[in-house]
């Protein structure tokens, strides 16, 4: 996927980068934002009703990260920590506005409030019926399954990162994602759309 995520393999490099962030190094923070802004913004966009809200919460996520970097323990990757911050802020957003939690189905129906030139995630799907079935199946997943599944599918987080974001064990993430996929598959089979979906080329 296209998230320009910092690939720091050596622990020492990452530690040094975190130390620079903790020291209030402006350059390090700029790099941190540059590398993660698309991920954070896209994540917020997937959870919030408008681009404007997504920008606000994405900004707020970085501000909060900046303010609390001193308490970052480096047990998780920086970006999973960042997504965990965004996740909490998105939840706060709905708590504050007293809006029902987001509906993936509604989000997809409305194209997620994306401008028309942005392809919807389902644009490549064969038929609108299949598209609806899949988004409905995703929406019918229990929240904790849906969250793990979408963090994997939409945002390319590793199991370890998802585990940190959700505060669960890696094994739990693994089985939630697998079961989410199994559930979507069974819904397609039940509706008789599975064969069409599996045999189509794109």
């Amino acid at each position: 996927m296209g998230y320009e995520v910092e690939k720091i393999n050596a622990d020492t490099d990452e530690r040094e980068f975190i130390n620079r962030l903790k020291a209030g190094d402006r350059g390090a923070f700029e790099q941190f934002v540059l590398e993660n802004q698309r991920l954070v913004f896209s994540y917020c966009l997937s959870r919030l009703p408008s681009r404007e809200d997504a920008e606000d919460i994405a900004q707020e996520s970085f501000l909060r990260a900046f303010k609390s970097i001193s308490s970052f323990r480096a047990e998780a990757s920086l970006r999973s920590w960042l997504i965990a911050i965004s996740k909490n802020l998105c939840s706060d957003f709905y708590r504050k506005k007293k809006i029902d939690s987001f509906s993936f189905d509604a989000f997809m129906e409305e194209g997620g409030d994306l401008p028309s030139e942005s392809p919807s995630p389902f644009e490549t799907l064969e038929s609108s019926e299949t598209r609806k079935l899949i988004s409905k199946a995703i929406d019918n997943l229990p929240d904790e399954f849906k969250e793990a599944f979408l963090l994997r599918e939409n945002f390319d987080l590793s199991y370890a990162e998802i585990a940190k974001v959700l505060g669960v064990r890696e094994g739990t993430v693994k089985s939630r994602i697998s079961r989410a996929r199994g559930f979507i598959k069974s819904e397609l089979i039940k509706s008789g759309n599975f064969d069409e979906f599996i045999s189509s080329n794109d």
Partner: protein
Amino acid sequence: MLHEKYENMISEYLDGELSEAEEKELILHLEGCPDCAEHLAFVKKLSENLSIAPEEPSPDFMERLMNRLAFEPFEEEKKENKLIKLFNKKSFALAASLALVIITALFALPRLSYNMKSAAPQMRAEEAADESKNEKTSAFDVAVPKDSPEDAAIDEGSEAAESGVSPEESLKYSSLEPSLISALGDILAENPAFRLYDSFGNMVFENTAGAELIDVLLSELYEDEKKETFEPDYELIFVAEDFELKLKIYTEDKAFYVYAEDFDKALRVDRNFSEFMSELFRLNLDS
């Protein structure tokens, strides 16, 4: 049939979470198991269809963000250049007393807000009354005698009736407002200059008629719990040569928060900050 063990492994395989040995084991199994192979094809296809291209935030995302962050050395440097000393040495005492009044106001606000609300029925007088019942002490009692005879003349009867509080309470709280506002007003009328800086030290607003500001400000403030300790969006600074009072302003969509430095008291104004300031600006131009 689909094998549960391999169903999980297929998921992990496509997510890049399998070890080399596990991968080998899975591939070997898939060769002889069409159901599991089909599951692999399904999961792969589903993932392809679900992956979204990352969205770009607006081009000025970084710039706006960095402007909201205060990097200490940078901030200090800019403030040194931008901050204009507005009072001369002689007016130090005046500046100090101004600060005292403002700080006093911050402590007094639970009561003040009570008064304001009881005077304005649309501001949910009853709720305010409940809140203020719990407030027994205030620094304001020291600063402004509550039994000042001239204040006692303020019409207690109608307010008390509207807000559902005893005439005695109403009288007491009513007596605070005019004295405080006029005290602030007098000081600011003589020394009306203050400026508003953003967190980088850039001046964003200059006030030339302080009395109105305080008037409006006080009529809309009420106490709120301390907000998170982010850098403020704006700082309102009263400046003297040897003295500086800093009020931190945190903005939200429909409200802003005011903090006096070193004080825990937070005040919330249920107004959009930009609108509020531009209204004041018009006010100043008119006056």
